[in-house]
């Protein structure tokens, strides 16, 4: 088996193929552009014949997320994927999973909104992803891949985080990363966990009651508010721990930079090109790329902002992450924003122009 073989594939295909190799037990989804290749690849590869992974085209996004709830509630590694309008439909299920502490994974290959919007790339679901998205005080862990390789790598990482904290994890991608082909090395094959392993590692899972313990119940409902407050405090304590330990980010050419661009996912790739172009015309710029959007690298951005002439937040939206950056920078450095809307992806020279405007 040439497991370490370098191949060329789309981000969406990488998600599907990495999942099969990471011992994922189930995928439940409903097609939508620009992420349909996830379920198409799974249908083509037929993992149910090899690893035993279940693949279901559900009747809707609402059904998909609740199938993930059910499977993950039984301790299985289960995930779904969709694009913005479909992810909006899933928010109820995600909130319930956060409440019941169910470790599922959701992939959002974003497209322009609001509403049905367009099918072209966008990053306008940042608020929805990082603020919980559904009702109640909760957070999901949000990872933002910037390459096809990270699409593949973040699948296993997402499941590890989801089970470590018993919390939903979202991979927040977009139409650029989903549709683009790049070289990728897929993870090696790992078998799915056995029932025995799940029983041992997930004592909370609903796998059928044994004689010596009380039934496990997965629910987000609790009618006594005193009990519900205790549950909420427990969740908040968990989120505090996640904020403390799971922040991930990357920096590039920041050492001598007068200007730091903060960008995630595909926007960070566009920004890298813009930084090269800006340096060619004498503007020293660097990149700070949050990899976890929640927890957000607040302290790290505060530190990187020190002594710079300006921070430019580049997003494919009207200005969402820029709010978190402003909170982090807290007035120490001017913070600007550049973005395009509705499915238009900014070209690198537009970002250079935005940098120039900050200079003046």
């Amino acid at each position: 088996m040439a497991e370490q073989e370098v191949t060329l594939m789309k981000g969406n295909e990488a998600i599907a193929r990495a999942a099969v190799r990471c011992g994922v037990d189930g995928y439940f989804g409903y097609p939508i552009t620009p992420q349909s290749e996830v379920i198409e690849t799974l249908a083509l590869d037929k993992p149910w014949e090899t690893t035993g992974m279940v693949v279901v085209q559900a009747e809707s996004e609402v059904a998909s997320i609740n199938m993930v709830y059910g499977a993950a509630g039984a301790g299985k590694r289960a995930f779904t994927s969709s694009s913005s309008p479909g992810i909006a439909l899933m928010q109820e299920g995600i909130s319930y999973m956060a409440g019941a502490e169910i470790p599922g994974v959701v992939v959002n290959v974003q497209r322009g909104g609001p509403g049905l919007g367009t099918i072209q790339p966008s990053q306008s679901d940042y608020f929805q992803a990082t603020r919980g998205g559904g009702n109640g005080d909760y957070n999901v862990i949000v990872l933002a891949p910037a390459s096809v390789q990270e699409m593949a790598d973040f699948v296993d990482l997402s499941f590890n985080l989801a089970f470590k904290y018993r919390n939903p994890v979202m991979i927040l991608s977009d139409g650029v990363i989903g549709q683009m082909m790049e070289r990728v090395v897929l993870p090696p094959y790992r078998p799915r966990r056995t029932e025995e392993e799940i029983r041992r590692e997930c004592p909370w899972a609903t796998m059928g009651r044994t004689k010596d313990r009380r039934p496990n119940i997965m629910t987000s409902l609790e009618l006594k508010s005193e009990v519900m407050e205790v549950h909420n405090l427990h969740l908040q304590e968990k989120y505090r721990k996640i904020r403390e330990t799971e922040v991930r980010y990357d920096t590039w050419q920041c050492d001598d930079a007068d200007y730091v661009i903060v960008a995630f996912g595909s926007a960070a790739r566009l920004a890298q090109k813009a930084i090269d172009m800006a340096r060619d015309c004498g503007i020293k710029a660097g990149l700070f790329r949050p990899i976890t959007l929640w927890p957000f690298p607040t302290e790290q951005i505060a530190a990187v902002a020190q002594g710079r002439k300006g921070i430019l937040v580049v997003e494919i939206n009207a200005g969402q992450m820029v709010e978190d950056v402003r909170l982090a920078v807290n007035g120490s450095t001017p913070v600007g924003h550049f973005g395009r809307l509705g499915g238009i992806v900014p070209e690198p020279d537009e970002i250079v122009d935005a940098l120039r405007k900050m200079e003046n």
Partner: protein
Amino acid sequence: MEKEIIISGFGGQGVLSMGKILAYSGLMEGKEVTWMPAYGPEQRGGTANVTVIVSDERISSPILSTYDIAIVLNQPSLDKFEPKVKPGGILIYDGYGIINPPTRSDITVYRIDAMDKAAEMKNGKIFNMIVLGGLLEVCPVVSHAGMEKALYKTLPERHHGLIPLNMQALEEGGKIISRMAR
């Protein structure tokens, strides 16, 4: 070396496949590659384009403002991408159906009548390979051997019998591409 290439033409003409073969060939030669389609509501008869970057180093943006090489296969594509070729860059166009040919004098313009050649060879399907042969003649982004390897890798086995014909088309493309006077 980094080559930033846009290929644009009619939907259904094989523009995306052409980019895919090019990207795969780069991969076969151990290079970094990105392949980024304009995946909007393109359809047969409309226009479609794909950006392919082949590089010795890590590639930053898969989406670009300007290109080293533009391969344009219809008038709307020529109109759109001629202004986006970097000064000193290359524009390759198929003369079929072109009413307003390229006018820039700060780039090198090549014409390849691949549509006519494919008709002459009585196989419309090898049009793509003729165009790619022209590209490799004027700018060897990848080698013919790399491209042959890519074809074996990407085509299903039942079509492997067609690879010699495709390689022949690649050779023909190299022969018929011609530089236009400034």
